């Protein structure tokens, strides 16, 4: 499976390979090779140049352009961009009660989704990492991972089907004289929690997998019941992994507008504010200013959790 571990085979391959003695045939190539061999800095520069140009210049550059655009405005009559810096967009965002309400609602949804996912993910991850046998574990990991690659849109659509009136949820709750939540804020929260659940399970599972069993046995030998072991030994150790999972659940919820459109009914989250200003209102500067809000919240969150070591668990 892993070619690299079978050292003998690799070395034989080198000896048998037809191009293994180009020393006499290709002096230019050899010169280049030995130049590279002697100059680690050149090698490093060659490796780093393209990705750094892409990520720093193109990507961070784009974010900077967006940030600059947030200070512009559009002519309300012609819709043309006015490239004059002003704080107006941000002032509107702060002063208009509508935006404050939507922002708080979005934060609430993101936090709820994160908590719900953490609560569902913990027992599942504990079972996978500490109860299931190794063979079953591999299968379970595959079962959790597979839906991660099922289309985001399809999963949101599945919940549109589930929660439709006279749909499966209503049908299942019918005998209890209950009905599903229908399309709205609850449906958005449920769907987002469903969408991001694997993002929470996987890091928590990986974190638990790294907790050595000997620690748990030591804790039990010292008289701690399972609950106490979990609280005092396991939870502190996997906290960075939980936080790593929460970065995804939280940040992905903050900017979502597609799920809201699919199952949200008339609900609006902050993503919709951004989206509608690009599409319907064609006010790119205001959309850019609005987009700065989730970025600021996420960067703040990242700065807060950085000390937990969560970023190494991503």
């Amino acid at each position, binding site marked *: 499976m892993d070619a690299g571990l079978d050292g003998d085979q690799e070395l034989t391959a080198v000896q048998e390979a037809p191009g293994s003695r180009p020393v006499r045939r290709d002096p230019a190539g050899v010169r280049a090779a030995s130049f*590279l061999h002697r100059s680690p800095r050149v090698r490093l520069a*060659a*490796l780093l140049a393209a*990705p750094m140009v892409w990520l720093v210049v193109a990507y961070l550059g*784009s974010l900077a352009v967006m940030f600059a655009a947030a200070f512009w405005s559009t002519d309300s009559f012609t819709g043309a961009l006015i490239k004059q810096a002003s704080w107006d967009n941000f002032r509107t965002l702060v002063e208009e009660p509508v935006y404050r309400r939507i922002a708080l609602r979005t934060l609430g949804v993101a936090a709820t989704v994160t908590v719900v996912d953490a609560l569902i993910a913990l027992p599942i991850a504990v079972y996978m990492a500490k109860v299931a046998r190794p063979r079953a574990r591999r299968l379970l990991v595959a079962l959790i991972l597979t839906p991660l*690659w099922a289309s985001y849109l399809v999963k949101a659509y599945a919940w549109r089907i589930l929660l439709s009136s006279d749909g499966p949820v209503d049908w299942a709750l019918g005998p209890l004289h209950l009905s599903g939540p229908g399309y709205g804020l609850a449906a958005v929260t449920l769907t987002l929690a469903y969408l991001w659940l694997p993002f929470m399970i*996987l890091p928590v599972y990986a974190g638990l997998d790294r907790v050595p069993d000997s620690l748990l046995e030591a804790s039990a030998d010292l008289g701690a019941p*399972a609950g106490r072991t979990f609280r005092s030994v396991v939870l502190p150790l996997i906290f960075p992994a939980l936080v790593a999972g929460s970065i995804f659940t939280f940040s992905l919820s903050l900017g979502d507008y597609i799920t809201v459109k699919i199952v949200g009914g008339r609900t609006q989250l902050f993503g919709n504010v951004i989206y509608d200003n690009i599409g319907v209102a064609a006010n790119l500067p205001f959309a850019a200013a609005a987009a700065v809000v989730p970025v600021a919240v996420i960067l703040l969150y990242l700065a807060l959790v950085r000390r937990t070591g969560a970023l190494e668990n991503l």
Partner: protein
Amino acid sequence: MILSRRARIALAGAMVVGLAIIYVPLLLVLLNSLNSSRTFGFPPTGLTLEWWRRTLDNAGARSALWTSVKVGLGATALALLLGTCLAFAVQRYRFFGRDVISLLVVLPIALPGIVTGIALNSAFNAGGVPFGYFTVIVAHATFCIVIVYNNILARLRRTGTSLEEASADLGATTFQTFRYVTFPQLRSALVAAAVLAFALSFDEIVVTTFTTAPGLQTLPLWIFDNLFRPNQAPVVNVVAAVLVLLSVLPIWAVLRLSGDETGGRL
């Protein structure tokens, strides 16, 4: 863990419920694609393969699928190149700013898609780049780099450098060592990373919305466009079912190829 029998059973129960929550909606999509009625009414009144037949002939869905494949291949190729270079640099060298790279590389998928989308949209606008395949592929490559980077980095960490040193000691040049030692060690990880990057690109909708040209529709864009049209619902149902079935492929490929117990990293 030292767990009582009851705790084990409770955890197993949570696992079963969790898997049910995850899979019931997906199975429902499959069932719904066979639903003979056009509405979501449950339980379905009858089953039919008619919609599957009609979807195969649907020109819009087919051309969107083709667009998605082209974009996915382009983005995957770029991401493979950039992500592998970056992984080598970070794993094999020390340099200023090395610690920031893992954060920088994850940023395009950790930030909400709408932010990345608007940022790239404003940059393309500012730079006068015409929207089309090029802009979509560039945008997709940006968030696919992280998958390649993470997978290759994990493989490089596992393989270490001793074989490469041995190869150099035996007189191989830098290029020979790469060709006969380093590359074979990486091959399966590269394929796994490519599959995952393609899958990520294939599924993306938000960034695509902001970087595409008016007539250029990827499959997710086509689905979203037709999602709210009642008379298109049966065809959307079938396309959704196909995507659910296809989602098995990336994981299957990764578990087979990379030998990575965690099934590849995001």
